[in-house]
């Protein structure tokens, strides 16, 4: 006797589609929020909203880009409503993050230096406005081109260029007052 399969529930279909994309969504959310709990909450809020909209995600041409756009707008909305303070993970979490990647220099001193640099860098990014912060995250960290970001952020290319210019300028000004250890090392190496 042949067995007829029951249709997969909408919740299951949603999960099958979204689960493989959760690591990417979390990473992008973390880079926007700079805080693990806030990033997880941002992703949860986003997915709940998307599920409740009952939009068939299977029909989307590029679900990754579509999700990035939804995440960005969720982040901006949340930030504007000041649902969470833009705080930076420190201490144990930053250490956990650093331990997750191999440190090429290996020594305890190098790890400490690198950890300090990463925290300073994260704080500098968090000090930017939400829009400037987002362009740095999505372009410089996530690697999207400005042309790709134009429809995602729903901002004209010219505005994106000037936004990126101002964001980078502010970052450089903040960080070059007291250069990061890695940056200093590179400059010193080039000078020799």
């Amino acid at each position: 006797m042949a067995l007829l399969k029951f249709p997969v529930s909408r919740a299951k279909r949603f999960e099958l589609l979204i689960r493989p994309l959760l690591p990417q969504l979390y990473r992008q959310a973390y880079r926007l929020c700079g805080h693990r709990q806030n990033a997880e909450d941002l992703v949860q809020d986003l997915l709940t909203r998307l599920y409740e909209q009952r939009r068939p995600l299977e029909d989307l041409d590029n679900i990754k880009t579509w999700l990035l756009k939804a995440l960005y707008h969720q982040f901006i909305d949340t930030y504007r409503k000041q649902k969470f303070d833009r705080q930076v993970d420190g201490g144990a979490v930053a250490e956990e993050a650093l331990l997750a990647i191999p440190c090429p220099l290996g020594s305890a001193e190098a790890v400490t230096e690198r950890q300090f640099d990463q925290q300073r860098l994260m704080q500098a990014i968090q000090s930017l406005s939400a829009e400037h912060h987002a362009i740095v995250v999505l372009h410089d960290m996530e690697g999207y081109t400005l042309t790709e970001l134009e429809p995602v952020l729903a901002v004209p290319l010219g505005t994106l260029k000037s936004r990126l210019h101002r964001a980078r300028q502010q970052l450089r000004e903040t960080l070059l007052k007291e250069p990061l250890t890695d940056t200093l090392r590179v400059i010193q190496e080039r000078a020799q």
Partner: protein
Amino acid sequence: MTITCSQFKTYLDEYLDGTTSPLLTQTLEQHVSACEACRQLVVAAKSLQQQLREMPYPPPSQNFETRVLKKIHSDTVPLRRYAIAAVIVVSLMTWFALSPPVGERLVANHDVMRIELSVEQIQHIDLVFHSPVDIEQATIRLELPRHIELAGQGDKQFLQWEIALRKGSNRLTLPLIARDMSEGQLIASIGSSGKTKTFHVKVSTKLPQSSTTSVLPVV
């Protein structure tokens, strides 16, 4: 063409992203090779870009995926609340076929059946469709009476999906839960190539009792 440091800084971001024209790139590189301050600026900016790309992030908390998807599944019915009771087999026979041609009826149209379900228990109803030929694309539609729920599907009263029928018997198991002591009709229809056959199953309810199996005869 020569440029000033101020002009160089204007083009710095496009230069870093590699989006300047070949001619402008050449001009900018000539300036960098001659200007120590701008050379250091480029080195520092490139180093900053590399650190941004390599910025680590902590892994999500251990139950992140479960937690984040939990609410999505909150509209499904937790099956553990219910005891699993009898298996009831309802045997249905398709009357249409892609071959032989249109009009051949394989069973008479006296297809109203009756089942009785215990309240607040999951009972598996096997709908058995008999088909004289393979049918690659058929549509099944279920309409549930208001007091009956399909376990795991929340309060959905209608379901429709595509299915392939094999020649012979095809079993579809429905986990049904009766919500209260009421009566109604479960309507199952199956269609293909513009022809549809509908079956009516009268569903009544009773108070829970020990497990029994009732098998309805083939129509």
